[in-house]
């Protein structure tokens, strides 16, 4: 049996739909509120955790595999194997600001509000731009309008939320899609089961 951690929320529905296409279906209804359940065949156990916790469960080997967005992986810097891009929940990690020329117009230290402190620090750091990171846990789009920050680094799917808050994309940092991640020890110790999961998912991606 292998344990698969799935991030609750945005990714959950498309991950379960993908698994169903690969012939892996949950035993209980999808709408159940239980946080751990088996698939119909008893080969897979699913645990549902906060997206940011998926790399934690997998790196510790509590879950053998996980399905999680690349944005979360970049932020966690966990040491995991990433055998498959599942192509689900496609979105972009961007720098956005009210002023389209903000990168050149801001004087001195740039203040950046974000949920993704690591990604933001790495992005600006690689270009030698000094920034003050303001870590928020939600509604990041509000920060520039209220004067908390000059820019934000955030995930964008359609761009509607950005526009409604008067923000435009200044730079794209990376594209993010759902990934299959695997624990390094499980990859060796449960190699047959992991290879089977990778191949059934690969066939439907």
């Amino acid at each position, binding site marked *: 049996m292998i344990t698969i951690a799935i991030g609750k929320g945005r990714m959950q529905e498309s991950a379960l739909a993908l698994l169903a296409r690969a012939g892996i279906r949950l035993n209980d209804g999808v709408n159940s509120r239980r946080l751990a359940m088996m698939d119909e065949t008893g080969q897979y156990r699913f645990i549902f955790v906060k997206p940011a916790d998926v790399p934690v469960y997998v790196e510790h080997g509590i879950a053998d595999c996980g399905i999680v967005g690349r944005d979360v992986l970049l932020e966690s810097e966990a040491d995991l*194997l*990433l055998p498959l891009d599942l192509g689900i929940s496609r979105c972009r990690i961007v720098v956005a600001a009210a002023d389209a020329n903000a990168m050149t117009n801001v004087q001195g230290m740039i203040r950046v509000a974000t949920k993704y402190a690591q990604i933001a620090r790495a992005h600006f750091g690689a270009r030698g731009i000094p920034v003050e990171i303001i870590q928020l846990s939600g509604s990041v789009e509000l920060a520039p309008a209220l004067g908390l920050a000059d820019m934000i680094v955030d995930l964008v799917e359609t761009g509607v939320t950005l526009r409604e808050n008067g923000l435009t994309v200044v730079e794209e940092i990376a594209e993010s899609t759902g990934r299959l991640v695997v624990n390094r*020890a499980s990859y060796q110790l449960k190699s047959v089961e992991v290879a089977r999961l990778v191949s059934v998912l690969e066939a439907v991606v």
Partner: protein
Amino acid sequence: MTSRIPAGMRYYIGAEARLRRTVEDVAMSVFQAWNYEEVITPSVDYYDLFEQGMGQREAQRGFRFTDNDGRLLALRPDVTSSVARMAATLLAERPRPLRFCYAAPVFRQQTQSHAEWRRENTQLGCELIGTGGKPADLEVLRLAAEILSRLNLQSHYCITINNVEIFNGVAAHLNLGESAREQLRRLIDTRETAELQRFLKNYDSAEARSFSQPTQLTGKRNVIQAARNTITNTRSLAALESLEELWTEVESLGFENSFEIDLGDVSSLDYYTGLSLKIFVHGAGASVGRGGRYDGLTGSFGRAEPAVGFVLNLDALTEVLGRNIAQER
């Protein structure tokens, strides 16, 4: 006085401390039965030693401080560097081969919140210096297997073996620059199939395909046969040949169920020069040991000679065994 304990440090009390000591005793008795002499190396040494021995990236994880004369010291982040220096200097005149074993704590800074959070780990290790080739490689593999089975982990462990020259040969054949080589290494290490294939598309050579299917890099003898279909450079082929010979020996010992070939183990290329191995145990989320051949190391202390060894992480093993015992109750 503070009641806090620094991150990555811990106590062992009573039964857990006894279990830990038992594990240590088992490993040391196996080493000694194979004629490995115990060595106790200094806990504090010049930082230069470790930089020379482990490379800068690993050595800088050591805890550093300064000596009275201003020279940089470190709390040892590994034992191998010190043993290699000893072999090349103090024991330069001793007849070869040298066989040494140790049980010693090492200290490394860790990125917080990762699975490998401990900053003090005790390494159970051995080094076989002054003899090369298949018999020496096989000897350390047999030692590792014997310790694990004496710990009742028979059929609960997996040792992966690779020869780093297979990757090095392909990288040289593709004429990769330093950053492209590092990118390829990283993509293979994390098995990022899609990115790997995109990267390799830039190289118009059959060799480029040899690492393009990560799932085909791990397995038994079939892995070597599959690699031969694409690899043509002599350096990689020679390494494949010696890996296959080693695998044949593993099979003839009846170990093939506990061993695996993993051509994708490219995590420490700068350190190992031939065989590299990793040890996994059910119940531990990360590898509990690693090792390989490091023929380049003693040369940096003035006496180049072949050497091979491995370490097991005593703390990780104790944790797994402790949990197994608790589950049996």
